[in-house]
């Protein structure tokens, strides 16, 4: 092929005079600084006050309107109080549950169990996820089973767990683990999969050892996915816990929110049922707001992944 011949051309390029160069160094720095200033737009943070007005006010107003409409309906239509209790009945029910201490006990029991189950799930799911992410063969073999387990409603384990462990806390923990472990492990795997290969290459090029690569590069990089997995794991823990507490009541199983719900049902106490549902909802949202939302927000913000602003 004719293009394959090598012509070694030599061109002489005139240099910029050395005298001009020294003077131009400052010029160059100003130029670069000017460009940097033009290209970085400081993000305008909205004030906390503004954020509350924008974010909290509308749902609260809607909620208030809904409660008002509900009360209105109860006053106007006078439905059977055992089928449609009014907001006041529900509030009174919460007050009663609070004053006789059952509410606090149930919330504490459920939270303690949910928290403990979640922590055990994290302790199991994290190494499992790491193993799956780094050991290809294991992943090929175990991955589909684990995804399958995520499809299986953890509530299906309740009857088996009761037969194995009786009506004890072990049953509750087992069900919680079956729900939370797969999603935590899968979250970590997904997080590690999403680590850009470029970052690994940079780590290697910088001379990181295998361990350093894992601890200084891969794990921090996989953190957002891991956190998402943890959040989902918590949701699963909480759901499974409620299911387990509702189904497996009695025996030596402590008195949690699920048990309170089921007891209210047994007493055909609809205000109590609704009150408990509200408490479960409230606790779930609170945990997300207190434990996960700030962690996630600060993590995403520090990496510039937060979806904010108008653009």
């Amino acid at each position: 092929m004719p293009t394959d011949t090598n012509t070694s051309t030599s061109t002489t390029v005139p240099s910029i005079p050395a005298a001009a160069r020294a003077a131009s160094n400052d010029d160059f720095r100003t130029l670069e600084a000017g460009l940097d200033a033009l290209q970085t737009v400081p993000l305008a943070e909205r004030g906390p006050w503004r954020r509350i007005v924008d974010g909290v006010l509308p749902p609260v107003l809607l909620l208030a309107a809904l409660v008002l409409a509900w009360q209105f309906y109860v006053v106007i239509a006078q439905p059977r109080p055992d089928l449609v209790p009014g907001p006041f009945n529900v509030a009174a029910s919460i007050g009663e549950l609070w004053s006789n201490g059952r509410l606090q006990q149930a919330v504490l029991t459920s939270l303690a169990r949910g928290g403990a189950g979640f922590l055990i799930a994290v302790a199991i799911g994290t190494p499992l996820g790491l193993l799956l992410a780094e050991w290809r063969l294991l992943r090929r073999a175990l991955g589909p089973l684990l995804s399958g387990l995520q499809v299986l409603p953890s509530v299906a384990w309740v009857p088996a767990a009761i037969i194995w462990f009786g009506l004890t806390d072990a049953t509750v923990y087992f069900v919680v683990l079956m729900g939370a472990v797969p999603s935590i492990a899968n979250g970590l795997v997904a997080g590690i999969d999403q680590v850009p290969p470029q970052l690994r290459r940079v780590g290697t090029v910088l001379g990181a050892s295998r361990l350093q690569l894992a601890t200084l590069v891969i794990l921090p990089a996989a953190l957002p996915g891991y956190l998402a997995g943890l959040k989902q794991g918590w949701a699963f823990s909480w759901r499974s816990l409620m299911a387990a507490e509702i189904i497996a009541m009695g025996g030596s199983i402590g008195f949690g929110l699920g048990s309170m719900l089921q007891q209210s049902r047994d007493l055909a106490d609809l205000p109590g049922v609704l009150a408990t549902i509200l408490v479960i909802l409230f606790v779930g949202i609170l945990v997300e707001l207190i434990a996960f939302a700030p962690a996630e927000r600060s993590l995403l913000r520090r990496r510039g992944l937060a979806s904010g602003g108008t653009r």
Partner: protein
Amino acid sequence: SAQGSAATPAGPAEELRLGYFDNVTHAPALVGLEKGLLADSLGDTELSSQVFSAGPATIEALSAGAIDAAYIGPNPAVNSFIKSAGQSVRIVAGAASGGAALVVRAGIDGPADLAGTTIATPQLGNTQDVALRAWLGEQGYDTDTTGGGQVHIAPTDNAQTLALFRSGKIDGAWVPEPWVSRLVQDAGATVLVDEASLWPDGAFPTTVLLVRSEYLAEHPETVRALVAGHTASVDWLTAHPDESAAVINTKLTEDTGKGLSEAVITRALSHVTFTTDPLAATFPVLLGAGVTVGTAKPGKLAGLFDLSALNAVRAEAGVAPVSAAGLGTE
């Protein structure tokens, strides 16, 4: 080959965990606990108790080792024994007999009116459930365990049954006491079939005293003390028919916060007989009925009973021994 019986006796146990229901048919437990008869008899062995609301949960607790002994209906006991190949439990005494019936809404006057109705039972495969299915079969009705057939059988929690009956969603129920009485007194139901009428002498087991086989093997003395306390409790019930309602109600109120009405409890007590005889001879019949209606699998019942402690206690009191009908030690 049973693992439980291979264990060697290890002297009296430190504690005994007893399960029971808050039901009139479990009155020996209620009275024994309320009047301290069981605790007295157990001496140094600490007694703790747990309330259950259904047979399966009780069996599960026994299997998981969460309790050591329980008052329970005969069918769950048989079920567990067969499923575990005879390794799980032993019946050490009877507790109550009678006290179950089919109650129906107004307008159902005979078996002929039952076609197309929905009848509740406490639980699939429990004593009343099997009785209903067997009886319906004899009346010529098709039933199945999925709620289909000519008469729909809906295994439903007893408390739920009362509510459903009141709102007209079910037409009747085959339930034990005090639910029969509650349905009759509180919800206007009428008794269509008294289960007692289906058995020779009207005697059929409703509640027995069950012990985990490992526990029995390890602590025979403790089991014997339990049986003695239980016997005392049954004797007290037989001897004080007038006081028993009050004692039972006290214990029920203590457990659930709610007692039964005077009328209900009186009517209920009049339909139940308390006896330490487990009526062992009826068990093969019970199992046969269960197998026929498809809620149980055939199996051997040999070894289900260990009545040696009971008979020893009875001998001490000078009462005739009861028979294990060839299904275990006497």
